[in-house]
């Protein structure tokens, strides 16, 4: 049971190439998403790291923001890393007032909550379901300040969640696309498979 899976990567700004590379290494097909037409037939979408204000601007400059939001509410599996997670969050602190929220996960995040670049760090973290540590890079990373009761914490540092899941949504404050370890992307792939077997799409 390994149906052909097509994963989109939002490619308005940021580290989308690195995600494409990881997906390719997993043997998956991927597509850069810049316009509404690129959303057709996707089985899942990754919202990459970068600047959430820049991506937010570009999302509202066309109807891509509205369409993407619709697809996410219809249950399209989504994985947001760093800035991508910020855009997924229900509530964004320290963002810009006009910043888009796709409301794809019941979390509150604080932009740059871990500080500026001089506070950026790398560290091994434990992820539930993985039997050895994952090396995680945090770049001007957002902090997950609170989570809704449907949100499952898959990893945390000092009791702050850094990898969370709700239904078919996955979000991390770190950058699994910047390391060669594919295990976090594999978690997203298993979420996509789950959605394909349970939904009628």
């Amino acid at each position, binding site marked *: 049971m390994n149906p052909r899976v097509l994963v989109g990567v939002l490619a308005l700004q940021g580290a989308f190439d690195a995600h494409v590379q990881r997906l390719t290494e997993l043997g998956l097909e991927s597509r850069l998403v*810049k316009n509404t037409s690129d959303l057709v037939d996707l089985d899942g979408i990754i919202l990459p790291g*970068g600047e959430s204000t*820049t991506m937010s601007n570009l999302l509202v400059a066309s109807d891509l923001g509205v369409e993407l939001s619709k697809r996410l509410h219809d249950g399209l599996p989504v994985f947001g890393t760093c*800035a991508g997670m910020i855009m997924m969050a229900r509530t964004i602190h320290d963002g810009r007032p006009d910043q888009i929220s796709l409301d794809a996960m019941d979390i509150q995040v604080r932009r740059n909550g871990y*500080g500026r670049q001089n*506070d950026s760090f790398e*560290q091994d973290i434990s992820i539930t379901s993985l039997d050895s540590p994952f090396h995680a890079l945090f770049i001007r990373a957002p902090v997950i300040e609170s989570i809704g009761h449907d949100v499952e914490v898959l990893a945390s540092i000092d009791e702050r969640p850094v990898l969370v899941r709700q239904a078919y949504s996955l979000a991390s404050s770190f950058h699994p696309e910047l390391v060669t370890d594919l295990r976090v992307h594999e978690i997203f792939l298993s979420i996509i498979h789950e959605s394909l077997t349970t939904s009628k799409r």
Partner: protein
Amino acid sequence: MSSSNNAQVGSFPVKRGLAEMLKGGVIMDVVTPGQAKIAEDAGACAVMALERVPADIRRDGGVARMSDPDMIEGIKAAVTIPVMAKARIGHFVEAQILQALGVDFIDESEVLTPADEAHHIDKYKFTTPFVCGATNLGEALRRISEGAALIRSKGEAGTGNIVEAVRHLRSILGDIKKIGSADSAELFEWAKRLQAPLSLVQEIAETGKLPVPLFCAGGLATPADAALAMQLGAECVFVGSGIFKSDNPGPRAKAIVEATTHYMDAKILAKVSAGLGAPMTGIGMDEINQRYADRGW
């Protein structure tokens, strides 16, 4: 502010990580908090805080130095996106000050008057990442071997003329292509010719790309310029004088951001290029008396 136990700050992967996050975006020169806000509103992925844009440095002459810390603090307070600032080539104390100020990236820049005619800054001594300019692959690899986490073309800053940036991009990317088809014995000759570490030349032969991201800078003034740089193979663009020396900075900045994202889509490029008013006037290469790109080695 960061966390406990085995966390490591300032490592090369962490520095390079921020360069990765800037990809596909536009980094804009700003000289006031007000300009920084306009840049952020337009969708800049970072701003470069400096006292005078290169066009004014060129016009005024004299010694160009690191900006006043107050001015950098003002810009840091005005925006939520990363803030970069320039240090003179070889002026490691200016770099120490910029790191202490908490800027997110330091540009060891030929646009400022060089402080050392033989040595660039040892960038491994810093936790703040550095970007450096290059006119060719040898220069790029020497800067990377000194610890630069990001390379940009030098172009010719403050001219509004993209010809030099195109020359530098083509030179860097052309040599990367040639190294990709060289055999292992030829790589020694490449390292000698480029005056660059053999290990970096071998890495390029293996991966087919620079070990750090490659951005374009120097003379970009229009959305079409940004798209040209991206189609040639740059991964992000810097726009200096081109925005705030134009008639209509806000809309022009926004148009350049959209052009950088949709650089392959000529219909979108046509749409965003319309109605922007006059770009900066610009100057030809035979009209300038000082080539900034010749600074650094």
